[in-house]
């Protein structure tokens, strides 16, 4: 393998993959990335959870491939100028020449690198980058984090085919709260699918989508999901197992409906939760006609109370929540007002954007 690449091009590409290479320590070759030169050149890196593959503009003098230590090459490229010649040698050595300096790095052969599946004949969907990013933002906060019920450590992608469209629902839950959002996609799908995208994959996807626009393509394979964003492909492994039945959890006929101004509520929550006990952040909502009193009591420290206006015409009810969960949910919602749909002090509460049919969040109340 022999190619010539410009410093800026190589530096940018290596920068992009640093996040992917560093993490895992269980498989040492993962600290390397793969450089492959065929008709075009591309680099690939994986940490066994996600993988990034992107093209790299280069003059290909000789085809080939090699696994190269990512960190070291990155450091080298940073310090040199101009065009860089990369040349593989015997026993997997890599010779790097730039200007008057030469370096030699020990590499590893391609066969030793984890073999990612190719996007072959798989189901394909198209979705707008901005839409997908938005959907992830509104749900990923509610997923589990290192939960021993590992299926909760990711986002559920529930794809339900209709005649010519597909409904995509994203769900995230940790057992105490559940966030869900739904959209219609123009692409058709052959059959219903449920995939669990690991949290890390979702976060990386969100990061990349932040600087992208237009339509992206999603390919669904039995063990992986591929996101083609521009000329970059982000692959994520899927989590094995059955996701909980989220529909069961969503309360359908909560009678008591309270409408509150989003910003006001958020600020009040921030203030009152100062007094709540660290772990639970418990806050009590005393809901009455026209107003809600937020109360938090910590016998060791003190207490806080705040009254906010609310549109409500029903029986008074007292209900306890984890303030943190409420704030997460409220922040993820668009619009100016939020609707709380409540039933009992110990039955799940539903938070909805009062304006549209956007994101929803189910929150389990607490005993206070």
């Amino acid at each position, binding site marked *: 393998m022999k190619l010539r690449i410009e410093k800026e091009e190589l530096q940018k590409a290596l920068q992009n993959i640093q996040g992917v290479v560093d993490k895992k320590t269980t*498989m040492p070759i993962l600290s390397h990335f793969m450089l492959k030169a065929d008709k075009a050149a591309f680099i690939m890196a994986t940490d*066994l959870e996600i993988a990034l593959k992107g093209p790299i503009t280069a003059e290909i003098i000789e085809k080939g491939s090699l696994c190269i230590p990512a960190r070291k090459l990155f450091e080298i490229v940073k310090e040199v100028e101009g065009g860089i010649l990369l040349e593989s040698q015997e026993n997997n050595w890599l010779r790097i020449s730039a200007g008057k300096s030469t370096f030699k790095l020990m590499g590893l052969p391609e066969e030793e690198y984890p073999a990612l*599946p190719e996007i072959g004949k798989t189901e394909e969907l198209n979705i707008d980058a901005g839409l997908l990013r938005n959907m992830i933002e509104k749900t990923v906060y509610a997923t589990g984090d290192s939960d021993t019920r590992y299926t909760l450590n990711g986002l559920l992608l529930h794809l339900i085919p209709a005649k010519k469209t597909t409904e995509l629902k994203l769900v995230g839950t940790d057992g105490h709260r559940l966030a869900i959002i739904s959209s219609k996609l123009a692409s058709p799908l052959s059959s219903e699918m449920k995939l669990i995208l690991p949290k890390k994959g979702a976060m990386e996807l969100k990061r990349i989508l932040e600087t992208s626009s237009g339509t992206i393509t999603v390919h669904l394979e039995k063990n992986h999901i591929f996101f083609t964003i521009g000329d970059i492909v982000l692959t994520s492994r899927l*989590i094995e197992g059955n996701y909980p039945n989220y529909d069961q959890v969503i309360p359908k006929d909560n009678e008591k409906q309270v409408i509150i101004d989003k910003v006001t509520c958020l600020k009040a929550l921030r203030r009152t939760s100062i007094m709540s006990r660290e772990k639970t952040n418990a806050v009590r909502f005393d809901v009455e006609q026209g107003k809600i009193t937020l109360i938090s009591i910590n016998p060791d420290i003190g207490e806080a109370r705040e009254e906010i206006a609310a549109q409500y015409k029903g029986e008074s009810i007292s209900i306890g929540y984890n303030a943190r969960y409420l704030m997460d949910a409220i922040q993820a919602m668009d619009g100016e007002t939020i609707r709380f749909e409540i039933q009992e002090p110990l039955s799940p509460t539903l938070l909805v954007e009062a304006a549209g049919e956007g994101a929803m969040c189910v929150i389990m109340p607490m005993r206070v």
Partner: protein
Amino acid sequence: MAFKDIIGQENALNILKGLIAKGRVPHALLFAGEEGIGKKLAAINFAKALNCRGKVKGIDSCGACPSCVKINKLLKPETLITAGEGDDNLKEKIYMSHPDTALILPYKNEIRIKIIRTLEEHLSYKPFEGNYKIAIIDNSDEMNNETSNAFLSTLEAPAAKSIIILVSSKPGILLPTIRSRCQQVFFSPLPLKKMEELLREKVKGLDDEKLFLLSAVSGGRIGYAITEGLIEKRDSLLEKFLLMTGNPGKEIWEEREEMEEWFEWCQLWLRDIAVLKASGGTGLLINRDKREEMEGLASGASLKNIIELSEGLNKIKRVLDRNLNIAITVNHTSMLMRKMLGRQNVRDN
């Protein structure tokens, strides 16, 4: 390197091949049997067969496809840089040369909970490039109590397409709750005839008596049988055995390890002497090339004494790890031997 290259172990390999052929590979297996007879080797080849991408038909792995090439590296784990170096929290070694196949070895005879958590994470995904996600835990009996209990629910019902292989030479030590969740596959020591065949090939210049000696002494363990200098070791330790009946100096053993080994080997000679006395003939002797010395010792001691000596030496061996004073140990041992064997073949220093 594949199943067909493993010597002996017909029963075990047939069982494993049958599981693959019938598509009934259980999610948890326990490979049990003596040390050094090929359990780990079988586990690695089993993993290869399960994840092989190069075979056209048949059960055994092809050995050449990228999957087999990667898993093969587990045969020589020391050539892999492992997790553990530079990572203080993970001293137990996890070797992964294939994204779906992990080999776990204990650290300082212990396997702690952290490893199980890492393993569970590894298993919670769908396979990366193989058919199954496989974890092989060698010397699994070294899981401490905490780790064993934490492992139970994963071992009972891991995520789909996971296979956990516990390897152990002391399955009795594993918790019954662990064994209960695994299908046990028994590995046996190599039969004598096969061992002799193997040694004839691998080790040159052995006469029949020495060949027999190595085969018998190895107890069917290939790794042990081809250890360098095994016969020389026998010779040297036997010499020291004979010296013990005289007036040995306290320098008789060069190092601790040698002392421990000496006590192990004593049982062999005592057994030979006892057998000579009891059966009245040399047919059952193992140290055939040292017939004379054995007969000499046998003539002067009673069967009762030999058995008592065996137990006495065993008692001493059991307390060896309590930092005994070497001189006292030597004296005590020597005294015991003189008492039981009489002062035959006295070889004074």
